């Protein structure tokens, strides 16, 4: 278990919706190891988003323990969680979530601003990250001057720029056509081959098929957890 990046132990998450308690996660235990490529699937209302928010340290569980890279994050303060998000998590969203008024380079630099890096270092790392996703020639473009696939690649560069433990993607191809989706999946496959741990929430089976392991949620519980035989040996 020493190479576990994410460890969920009996995680429950309940929301108080005007006196009525809604149970989003009803006791999830899950381990994700370094360099795994995991797809989390499930119908709407299954608790996917809640699980994703918990993994991404945007939310804390009502009950249970969450260990991320050897530290317990389930009881951390807001600011400590912000630090963990900055260092350990690289988010890729369905709607890209780039700052519209900032250039690609400035968007990618943003996590480094909050990490407190000097502007020279920020710039160099951001350029590297944009190079890795093949956007070296689009650094000074604003999001509205980029195609959907390019925007998502800027978002991926931003997610990678802090060298996070996990690349956490929420429906990364949800706003893209199938050709562009394939392009993004190729980028993910490439990153995984370089050793990046990837957790991806999706409801599309053909997108999930790119992952090595598929976790299926239903009614706040893990219904199935299948690892593809071919790649599992690693």
């Amino acid at each position, binding site marked *: 278990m020493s190479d576990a990046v994410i460890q969920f132990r009996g995680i429950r998450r309940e929301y108080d919706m005007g006196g009525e308690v809604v149970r989003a996660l009803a006791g999830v235990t899950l381990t994700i190891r370094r360099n795994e490529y995991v797809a989390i699937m499930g119908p709407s209302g299954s608790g996917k988003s809640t699980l994703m928010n918990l993994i991404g340290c945007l939310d804390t569980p009502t009950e249970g323990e969450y260990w991320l890279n050897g530290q317990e994050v389930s009881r951390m303060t807001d600011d400590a969680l912000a630090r963990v998000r900055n260092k350990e998590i690289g988010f890729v969203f369905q709607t890209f979530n*780039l*700052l519209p*008024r900032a250039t690609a380079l400035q968007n990618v630099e943003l996590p480094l601003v909050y990490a407190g890096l000097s502007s020279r270092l920020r710039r160099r790392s951001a350029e590297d990250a944009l190079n890795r996703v093949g956007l070296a020639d689009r650094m000074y473009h604003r999001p509205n001057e980029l195609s959907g696939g390019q925007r998502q690649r800027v978002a991926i560069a931003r997610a990678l720029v802090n060298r996070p433990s996990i690349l956490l993607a929420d429906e990364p191809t949800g706003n893209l056509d199938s050709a562009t989706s394939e392009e993004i999946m190729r980028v993910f496959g490439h990153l995984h081959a370089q050793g990046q741990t990837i957790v991806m929430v999706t409801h599309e089976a053909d997108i999930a098929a790119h992952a090595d392991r598929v976790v299926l949620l239903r009614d706040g519980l893990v219904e199935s957890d299948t690892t593809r035989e071919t790649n599992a040996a690693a």
Partner: protein
Amino acid sequence: MRLLEAVRIALQMIWAQKLKSFFSLVGVTIGVTFLIAVVSIVQGMNVYMEDQFANRLVGLNTFQLRRFPGINMGDISEETWREWLRRPRITYDDADYVEERVKTTVVLSRYCQERMTISYGGKQAKDIEVQGADAAFFQIKNYEIAAGRPFSPQEARVGAPVVVIGDLLAEKLYEGLDPVGKTALIGGLPYRIIGVVAKQGTIFGISLDKFVVVPFNAPTRRKICMYNTMDELYVQAASSPVMLTAMDEVESMMRSRRQLKPTEESNFYLQTAEGALEGWQRISRILFMALPGLVAISLVVGGIVIMNIMLMAVAERTREIGIRKALGAKRRDILAQFIVESATISTVGAIFGIGLGIGLAFTVKALTPFPAAVAPWSLGVAVALGISVGMSAGIYPASRASKLDPIVALRSE
């Protein structure tokens, strides 16, 4: 570095939404405009009153021994007037007494003046200030002689019928001629013009060149002075501290000469340039007291407007806040970002206000005889006020932004 980024974001926002920015800046701008304009005008008036008005009327490092104040601003009560009119006049003996006994090195001149008509050939100049004085008067008033010469102490002592004329008279009566050597009739008596004083200009639109200077003992004395008395005795010292010593000396001399008891008020007056300014200083003090109130009202209004603009900005940019938080921004990062943004908006407003205020001050200077001088400290105060109004207005919106739940914020549109 992060500060610069926040400033840059704020400037972008101001530029992107020009109309909204105009309304958000207007309050602070008006407040600062008031501040700069009023301070500049009052400051300019101060400089003007001291340099031009008082020193021209009285003279540099000079005081006048008088019966009662000659330059008054504001109301003088009936009672005060009656007391002043009961005072004895300054006599020749008083002047001699002072001149003989004063130990401080000073220059003295007796002085009387009256408005009279002066004529040359067929031309007449009415309402000319005829000043009778001693030879030192030219030095005391710092009159520059443009042509000819001033009269000598000998001419002053014997009361020679010579006259030094002001520029206006030279222009009016002797247009195209050299007045030096010509004769002027002053109160019907002939005087030989021996010099012309260089142009003095105007003060509050009133010409300072409508005068002539004749020796104190010259024949017109009877028409400008009451028998054996004078309007005032000018006393000039080399510097301001020496002048103060001389004033003390003259005051105690006059008191003992007039046998006043220690409890009695002096029944004479020592007028200085500063004393003449007392009234003006009272006005400028009132302006300076009213100023903070005026400025504060517009700044409070400006601050409230900025606070609203910032609340709108926070609402509009909820998603941005969510993104920043997801990427690792701590509460204080968001807090700082919006406070800096708010302070930037307000400072830009203050800078516009500085521009407008200076513009207003110089407009006043151009259109009225009032001068204007921008006080450097008021610019510092304006910028400091701009920054602090913006920061205080930004605190509440920024704290709302910093407390947003990133999950909710990311979902907003």
